């Protein structure tokens, strides 16, 4: 099992490494780059929510802080936005500690709502602290490379690093402690686990990687504004969807979910590449809503978590009871 997982990982890595050399179209490369970025964000969200049970509606905070760290390197410090790749992670981690310090006093839905509120505060600060962030005008930088290839490999590296790190963490003491807190915080405390400490550690790792993804986004896209990078819908909710659709509480769930969601988003945005009527592109929020309802009803553990169920469905056998992993709704 252990070996198989490593082999799948290496196989995928090799496949993705070859892809941009075979596929010449920048359009497809772009989609894969964005999907790889979502692998990072979805996996990070999954560490905190899927494994540690602390469902965050505020991951836009870390993405935004990471992106702005990179942007501000150029606009205020006059250095390359690439320094953001070093700065973005730690800065996001600091905002993560702030979020934890505020929100980890609360449990369950109260925690979820608190993260939502703090994320809105960050968005508003980014809009109104014009001296630092340029407000709604956003930050525009000149991207370093015209080719997609360097960005592609950077995104691939980040995604691989993130998935690998999280799968390693989950096999260690931290991983056991995270899941224990998810399953029963009171029982965890009785086993000598400081739930505040380990929730904070989970949040730190999660925010670090999300911040890296944000810094990457700034460098790749060359433009950010608060409504994009601190967006509830485009970042925080999307992070949840990626992990939920793929399978929260599994290592391979968010990577699968990232590709599913980015492809779906692209299909709707382009009205199924122009084959569907134009209004379809307007309806993508609606479609995502329906998708979530269906996923929660029939596939609560996501594509990866409920894979045996899907296979059985294919073979027209009685579905197996859903196994370990996933979030209890």
């Amino acid at each position, binding site marked *: 099992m252990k070996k198989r997982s490593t082999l799948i990982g290496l196989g995928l890595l090799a496949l993705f490494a070859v892809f941009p050399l075979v596929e010449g179209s920048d359009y497809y490369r772009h989609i894969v780059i964005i999907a790889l970025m979502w692998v990072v964000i979805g996996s990070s969200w999954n560490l905190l929510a899927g494994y540690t049970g602390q469902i965050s509606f505020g991951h836009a905070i870390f993405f935004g802080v990471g992106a702005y760290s990179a942007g501000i390197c150029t606009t205020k410090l006059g250095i390359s936005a690439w320094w953001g790749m070093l700065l973005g992670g730690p800065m996001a981690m600091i905002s993560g500690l702030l979020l934890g310090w505020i929100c980890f006093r609360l449990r369950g839905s109260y925690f979820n709502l608190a993260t939502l509120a703090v994320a809105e505060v960050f968005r508003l600060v980014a809009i109104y602290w014009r001296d630092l962030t340029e407000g709604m005008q956003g930050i525009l930088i000149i991207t370093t490379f015209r080719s997609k290839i360097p960005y592609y490999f950077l995104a691939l590296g980040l995604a691989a690093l993130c998935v690998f790190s999280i799968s390693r963490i989950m096999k260690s003491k931290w991983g056991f402690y995270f899941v224990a807190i998810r399953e029963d915080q009171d*029982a965890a405390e*009785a086993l000598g686990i400081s739930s505040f400490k380990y929730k904070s550690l989970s949040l730190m790792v999660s925010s670090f990687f999300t911040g890296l993804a944000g810094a990457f986004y700034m460098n790749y896209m060359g433009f950010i504004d608060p409504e994009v990078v601190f967006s509830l819908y485009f970042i925080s909710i999307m992070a949840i969807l990626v992990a939920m659709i793929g399978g929260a509480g599994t290592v391979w769930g968010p990577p699968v979910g990232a590709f599913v969601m980015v492809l779906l988003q692209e299909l709707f945005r382009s009205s199924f590449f122009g084959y569907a009527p134009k209004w379809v592109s307007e309806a993508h929020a609606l479609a995502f809503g329906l998708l979530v309802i269906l996923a929660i009803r029939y596939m609560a553990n996501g594509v990866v978590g409920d894979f045996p169920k899907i296979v059985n469905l294919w073979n027209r056998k009685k579905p197996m009871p859903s196994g370990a992993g996933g979030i209890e709704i």
Partner: protein
Amino acid sequence: MSFFEIKRLTKAFGGLIAVNDLSSSVEEGEIYGLIGPNGSGKTTVFNLITAYYPITSGTIHFRGKETNGLPTWKICKAGIGRTFQIVKPLRRMTVLENVMTSAFCRTSSSTVARDRAIEVLHFCEMGKKLDYPAKSLTIGDRKRMEIARALATEPKLLLLDETMACLTPQEQAEGVQLIRKIRDSGITIIIVEHIMQVIMNICDRILCINYGQEIARGTPSEVANNQAVIEAYLGKE
């Protein structure tokens, strides 16, 4: 000073005094029973010792150190393990993973934790069920797993909260043996139990409480023949 000592322990939930001026001490190596009718405050005492509730007044000393004021997880680190009356399995983990999680209390190495967990599970006669998902266990096995989980944190003092309730007579007999085995391995035990057969059998000393107050203490036979205890359980003539 005794191995474990509570002094003038009081807990008030608003106007309701759940534990009232309770003092007691437990010596190293004994099995100490805590009994009382339903709602007499036994579980509350455990929740006070392990800091799930803050104490209203009084002190708790464990091996010469005051433990009141410490958070729950530090009390576990200090060497007090517990089980829950309403079992709290980590549902979506296997039996082995449950116990490994608690074995990490004394080590950071997965291999050491795994070996320790397997050892404890064999000690508790759960060796055949290592890979069962915790949520699939019967109530008897869940209780056993809770004991194993508490043992894997390597406690010096173990608080057992109604580990025999809901068990078949056969399972109870096995449970009594297990508790004796735990004591013989050098762990002091405080046990809350309703089943008199069990408690009279294994305890060295018993404290009986009602309405959070002490009504009797002594050896099992002393307590069993105490008029106040009989009245508390059966009512007055």
